[in-house]
């Protein structure tokens, strides 16, 4: 008799559990910074340290100067 009662309660809880609402928050959930580095380390350029934002910014500024062909010619 007790097991039937427990079974009924368990069944009722299971049914009620299905009525629960999953969180439906919209929007973006977060992203790690580019300066944090990459899992794909074999393609990482070597002139900065992963996690060091200042060195990453410096490396990108230096790299951007590769597009400045006026500094390549006298």
């Amino acid at each position: 008799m007790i097991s039937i009662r427990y079974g009924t309660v368990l069944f009722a809880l299971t049914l009620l559990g299905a009525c629960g609402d999953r969180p439906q928050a919209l929007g973006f959930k977060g992203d790690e910074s580019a300066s944090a580095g990459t899992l794909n380390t074999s393609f990482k350029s070597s002139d900065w340290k992963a996690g060091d934002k200042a060195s990453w910014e410096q490396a990108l500024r230096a790299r951007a100067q590769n597009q400045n062909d006026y500094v390549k010619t006298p």
Partner: protein
Amino acid sequence: MARMKFICDAERCIECNGCVTACKNEHEVPWGVNRRRVVTLNDGIPGEKSISVACMHCSDAPCMAVCPVNCFYKTDEGVVLHDKDVCIGCGYCSYACPFGAPQFPSQGTFGVRGKMDKCTFCAGGPEANGSQSEFEKYGRNRLAEGKLPACAEMCSTKALLAGDGDVIADIFRNRVVKRNKGAEVWGWGTAYGSKQAGQPNKAGGKS
């Protein structure tokens, strides 16, 4: 660091479509989706000008403003990205964007419109930097590798510049000063109808 930006120097662009190809190849962009394309003004007329166009990573991005599910976000570097897990493919962003950047792949048996795809400034998406899932959804994350976008680095004439806005603005300004022309191909006169870019129009308005 300032915001990451693109500038295309129309005096240098030779409409080779190298940037388009570099982007397609780098990110394995599917058939029918063009994150970047080359647009030619006055095509076939002597003096035609070409510019390479993709997402301009607007400072006040209209796509972000209209998205009903708020899937867009902006990184610390000013790159406008989106979360494909949140995107519902409604297309509002494509109506809002003045550059035609948002693209929608045809997916499914009945050609149902897929989730939006656009230029990421080679910065991937919300998944872990350099992960396989990030690559499959957004393409390579070159920024996290310490590199600039493939389109600009591949550009043979260095018409397309990408990087820190202050740095590339300096490069472009230096070019204009050295060659003594070229700034006028961008701006009001070109966009809104003077006969010759950089020259006053007949109505006497400033070009």
